[in-house]
């Protein structure tokens, strides 16, 4: 299977995000696997998102386990809950994590509430 992290970032740079139009900033992910750290740097410039593998200074640095990050970018783990569990070490502007959260997908099994409600699938 392809690298889900690379795949995720490739998808992010292809899209445009209206809600990032007014913001600028950088966030670097330091991903740890077997005592090795790899880096992803995401730069938001007024709606444009660029991604590189540079280990450069950023407004916000986020250090976490690579496997956890892979689950986050697939929508399987929630980034805020992981942060509250202290599984993410964050240095710098917390606001950047909020911006990053906006480009994350939801859980893969999430349902559109409309067909669910129209089919009367929910109990209560």
């Amino acid at each position, binding site marked *: 299977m392809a690298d889900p992290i690379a795949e995720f970032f490739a998808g992010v740079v292809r899209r445009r995000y*209206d*809600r990032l*139009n*007014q913001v600028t900033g950088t966030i670097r992910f330091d991903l740890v696997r077997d005592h090795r750290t790899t880096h992803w740097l995401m730069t938001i410039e007024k709606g444009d998102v660029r991604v590189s593998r540079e280990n450069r200074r950023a407004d916000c640095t986020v250090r976490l386990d690579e496997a956890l990050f892979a689950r986050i970018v697939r*929508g399987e783990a*929630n980034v*805020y*809950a992981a942060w*509250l*569990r*202290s*599984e993410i070490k*964050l240095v710098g502007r*917390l*606001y950047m994590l*909020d911006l990053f*959260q*906006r480009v*994350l*997908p*939801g*859980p893969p*099994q*999430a*349902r*559109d*509430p*409309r067909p*669910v*409600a*129209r089919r*009367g699938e*929910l*109990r*209560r």
Partner: protein
Amino acid sequence: MSEDTVRILNGNTFVVSDRRGDITPSPEFPTGLFSFDTRFLSKWELSVNGERLQALSVDDLQYFETRFFLVPGKPTHYVDAKVSVIRQRSVGGSFDEQLTVLNHSREAVDLVIRLEIESDFADLFEIKDVRNKKGNVYVRPEHGRLRLGYEREAFRRETLVSSTAPATFDERGVTFDVRIQPHGKWVTWLHVTTLGTRGTEIRRSMHGQPGTTNRQLRRELESWLARAPHLTCQHESLQQSYRRSLVDLAALQLSPLILGASNIPAAGLPWFMTIFGRDSILTSLQTLPFTPELAANTLTLMASMQGNKLDDFRDEEPGKIMHEWRYGESAAFEEQPHTSYFGTADATPLFVILLDEYERWSGDSQLVGLLEPEARAALDWIDEYGDLLGDGYIRYQTRNERTGLVNQCWKDSWDSISYHDGRLPDFPRATCELQGYAYDAKVRGARLARDFWGDPEYADRLEREAADLRARFNRDFWVEDGEFYALALDPNGRPVDSLSSNMGHLLWSGIVDPSRAEAVARHLLGPRLFSGWGVRTLAVDEGRYNPIGYHVGTVWPFDNSFIAWGLWRYGFRAEAGRIAAGMIDAAKFFHGRLPEAFAGYDRELTRYPVEYPTACSPQAWSTGTPLLLLRVILGLEPDGDRLLVEPAVPTSIGRIELHSIPGRWGHASAASG
């Protein structure tokens, strides 16, 4: 329990104790020292020579500090104490208590002063049953201090207690063996720090601004009060509740971590000291003429936390405005959905309404431009994800069947929405006020699109949709034989035919057909709904009516403030004044601080408003109530760059002057009569 407690707070850090200053664990009520939704102290009990103390008096100095005067012995004793104790405490960056023991006799006394200390590190959502913690609690007496801790995987919370006077710490507390000279005193300062992961102070560990010192808090409170409009009137209860509201609004302010140092109103003490979409938005609407910065901060925060994906556990959808955020263990381990939870069907249209109302007062077109994508996404949500059945009405039904909210309107208790015969309708439900908010959001969104976003076509479309919604609503929700709007539509489109206060919000939103406004006003002030103090949540002849039922018969001050605003909007000035007068009269019985709710008994029956048993106090939107009522009776309304003033003040209130009302006009004054 709730009224016997003494509470101090600073942001989401607060202490709830009894009138002696002691903290004793309670399964019903959140007593203790709390911060970031975790209890850091569950026991804090003082004794002198083995005897507990009794309170002579309690001084509420400021919302963040208080002082207890105590003597040893049981309350039944005749007080002839040789020794007395003063506890002065505050919450700033930490919890601090100055303990002073005075010897009133002519001989020296030897005392064993003991403080029992414990923490269960309960999450605010497990107060009622703290037995099954998944992590480990530990206690470590260290040199000169006591460390209490809780650890679950990498999640850690610690309480560190130290003292300036020599002390012996053990696993259950701290002991001071002291000798006090004749007419002498002994003093110690107890310092309690709340730590998060990696042993740093919790706020700092969450990347927040450092905690505020008492001196800063005092200065900020003074400046807050000085900036607010100045009220002159002869009516004592109005004056008192105005002042109380301003102080409580200062107390309830929270600076959300991602906003830096900007404050928004938290919802209420002690259960709701966090960010709530609905509560923050409605409080900002109530307080706009007085403290407009709350609205700007709330809008910015809500925009930044807006939903952008589908998530069943969190009831999240793109464009939806959030409901509730929490920092505690249950949120961290996803036992609760509060990171963020989106189970609210009203916050999204209310967000658009607040943005428009804020601009009309402040003239801040920059923020309207900045938040255009979020406002458009919110307007889209109304017609897309909000319209669950595709019949053109906002409905709700949680997809989180374990911890989601059943009712996602302001009446969010399980039995709040019922038919006249008491049956509960199926889901999804479309409560009436949601449709009113949707209508108002479209009308206001159209103004924003035309005047600020340069999109007249979108404005036209929104106006057409609003007109269509209004026509359909007046057809589908009107209960012909009762001459009122149904509380809701059930999933089959049938009216949920209860008479309720929700109709007042319909007047506020403008969706009511003018030909029906008089019937609605007559009901709101009629004997079935109006108690003499205010409008009941549910009429007395409804199947589920209960004068002390949370949303099925009690009177909610905030609800009444919006009903008064609605009556005013349709020209029922005298009726709006009656509600305002009833609320201001009620406030007198609570020393100016309106509670979350009080009982729906007839005013004639009880003569005083009976507080709802577990009501939150202060609660933000109750605090905002006197302010919105002032706006209504003074008839304040922005009109371009002018402030219109059309007072209709009840004669029982008398003459009112309000000076320095901030807005796009600079500062304006308003006076009645």
